[in-house]
């Protein structure tokens, strides 16, 4: 597998964008180490780390045993000694096995050492449903970590964001939980060129993916594309001009972009594929209520996964996850309130 340096004119997919940044950062920072299950010899279950072991050696691209807690704990120890650490979770669902080390150890380290021990760790892994992964290969569990002060939470939805946000995360002195949307890894339709040089997308800046005036759709990850499709239908069928915001990072959250859009459109639907109860969409609704309630012309509604595990077989999976139809219908409700 050859790693092509991203040129402005070369379109790359989401996965290649990630892989290139890992290669580039490993080259730039000789102290950086990558650890995880099957990331070396195999090159990663999805191939994100392909070619890295050959290039940087088995010491810096370490195949670990199936021990998520030890992976995260080891990342903490390595970061303490001044290294940048990329720790891969083979599926983001498996992060629960390393949960204690993340929320009780990594997340609190800076706080309880009064800022003396920064931990430049990126814990990244494939996430999300729509692919028939079943309960343990389809989760979006970002709310667990957004709910644990001390962690940054990032979910890119385009190749250039994947590259720019990953580089920003690797250079951030805080632990970052980095959600890769596995259904986007090789999606042809979203391939795009990556800006040249050390391309960075700063954490905490949302992107407006579609400008609109009548209603705001707020999303991230895979459902962002469902929102964009719904927005087109709303325009075609009802003449409703929807704005679509991609949050990109949940912590830190770009409240400004959210609130400015609400002030402009006065109607909001929040969409994510995590379960409804205590999901991040609920947080966005609460922030809107706290800051711009007087601008609202309708209640803020959510389209989320149902409060169920993610079922395996397709009709069941699609039944519980957000869809274009569900988003469209909810937007109509809000628009016609």
């Amino acid at each position: 597998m050859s790693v092509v340096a991203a040129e402005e004119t070369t379109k790359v997919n989401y996965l290649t964008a990630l892989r290139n940044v890992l290669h580039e950062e490993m080259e730039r920072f000789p102290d950086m180490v990558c650890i995880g299950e099957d990331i070396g010899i195999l090159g990663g279950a999805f191939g994100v780390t392909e070619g890295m072991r050959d290039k940087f050696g088995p010491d810096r691209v370490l195949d670990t045993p199936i021990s998520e807690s030890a992976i995260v704990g080891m990342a903490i120890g390595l970061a303490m000694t001044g290294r940048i650490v990329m720790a891969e979770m083979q599926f983001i669902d498996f992060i629960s096995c390393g949960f204690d080390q993340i929320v009780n150890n990594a997340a609190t380290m800076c706080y309880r050492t009064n800022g003396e021990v920064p931990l430049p760790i990126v814990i990244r892994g494939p996430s999300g449903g729509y692919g028939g992964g079943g309960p343990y290969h389809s989760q979006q569990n970002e709310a667990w970590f957004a709910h644990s002060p001390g962690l940054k939470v990032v979910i890119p939805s385009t190749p250039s964001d994947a590259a720019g946000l990953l580089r920003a995360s690797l250079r951030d002195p805080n632990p970052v939980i980095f959600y890769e949307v596995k259904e986007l890894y090789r999606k042809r339709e979203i391939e795009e060129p990556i800006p040249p040089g050390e391309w960075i997308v700063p954490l905490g800046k949302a992107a407006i993916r579609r400008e609109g005036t009548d209603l705001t759709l707020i999303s991230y990850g895979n459902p962002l594309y469902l929102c964009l499709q719904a927005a087109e239908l709303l325009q075609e069928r009802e003449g409703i001009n929807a704005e679509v915001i991609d949050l990109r990072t949940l912590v830190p959250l770009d409240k400004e972009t959210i609130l400015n859009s609400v002030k402009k459109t006065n109607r909001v639907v929040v969409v994510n594929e995590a379960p409804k109860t205590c999901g991040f969409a609920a947080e966005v609704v609460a922030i809107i209520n706290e800051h711009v309630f007087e601008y609202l012309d309708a209640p803020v509604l959510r389209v989320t996964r149902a409060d169920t595990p993610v079922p395996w077989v397709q009709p069941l999976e699609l039944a519980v996850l957000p869809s274009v139809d569900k988003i469209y219908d909810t937007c109509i409700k809000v628009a016609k309130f």
Partner: protein
Amino acid sequence: MNQKSTVIPSEEEVKTEEDKERKAKPILPRNSLTREDHLEILRQIYLARYFDVRLIKEKRRGRLRGTLYSSQNQEAILVGTLYGLRSDDWISPVHRDMPAFFLKDMRSGWDNPERKGMSIAQVCAQVWGKATAPGRAKDNWSHIGSVPLGIIPSTSMLASTIPVACGVAYDFKLRNHDGVVLTYNGEGSTARGDFHEGLNLAAIHDLAVIVVVENNQWAYGTPVELECPTEDVADRARGYNIPGLVADGQDVLDVYDKTMWCVERARKGLGPSIIECKTYRAFGHGDHDDQRADRYRSKEEIERGRRRDPIAVYKTYLVENGILSEEEAKRYSPEGKHAIQVTDEDFPPEVVEAVRKGVEFAIASPLPEPEEAFKHVFVEE
């Protein structure tokens, strides 16, 4: 205390050719200790005991917040494991090891500002919850750490420092540095997944991680036989193909010998080991539990467990080997006495003075300002 306890590891604890050589060596680590070393080791044991006694008294006077996890009867483990370490080695003490924070690198001079250990004053400031504590006392008593000093901050989830120690030791390996990371754990924490995951990882990569298990027989209110199915906790080492040594936790020199054996091995790149130090928890899990602890453990058991005070055990050795006269050995005798019975007269004046200065520093220090609570959730740039 335990039949398996010997000065050097038994045959089954010896795994490699190098181990065999090391075992066959006629000179034991303790034989390289000078008279001055022995007197310093004794002073450090007194210091650990006095620190604990002083805190018990302060707590009874109502001057301290939080729970006191007494390290009494376990001082030989702390001093025995720490005395032979180098300044650049790392440690990760847990809640019952408070003296370890200042005993680390104590050999470089108690008041030496370059010392790679915390000052007694810093540790006292942490106990008193003052703004001068290493982490502004945002975390409780026992959770402090410092990267420049080589002390991994722990959490309340015991054994979780073992995987972190693996990270530090892996950095050593990548840099060809022969430092070691010594982690402290209770026998109860060996039941946790992190204990297994960490040791498994350390053994696969021959990481210089030394896992000290202070087997004081009780994990809060649960006896060791309900935490560990093997005869000795050290037997867990078999699953990782690493040495599992059993030391007499009341005998500072047995602990020292076995630690140095494991340290030398780790420095050569031969990997991790477990040292189980058999001891007995003298009081309750924490001071809140002192009264209840007498109900779940029989009086006879507690008496038996406290019978071999590490200070007395060491003094016997020092007298038998002509390092102290009987007269000198009797001069300071806190051993076997309950915390509230001992007085400053039972300890060498330099020990009392060192702790007094630390306590005074802590008392004189201000409490953190409430604004501190909102700082450093993230690195502030």
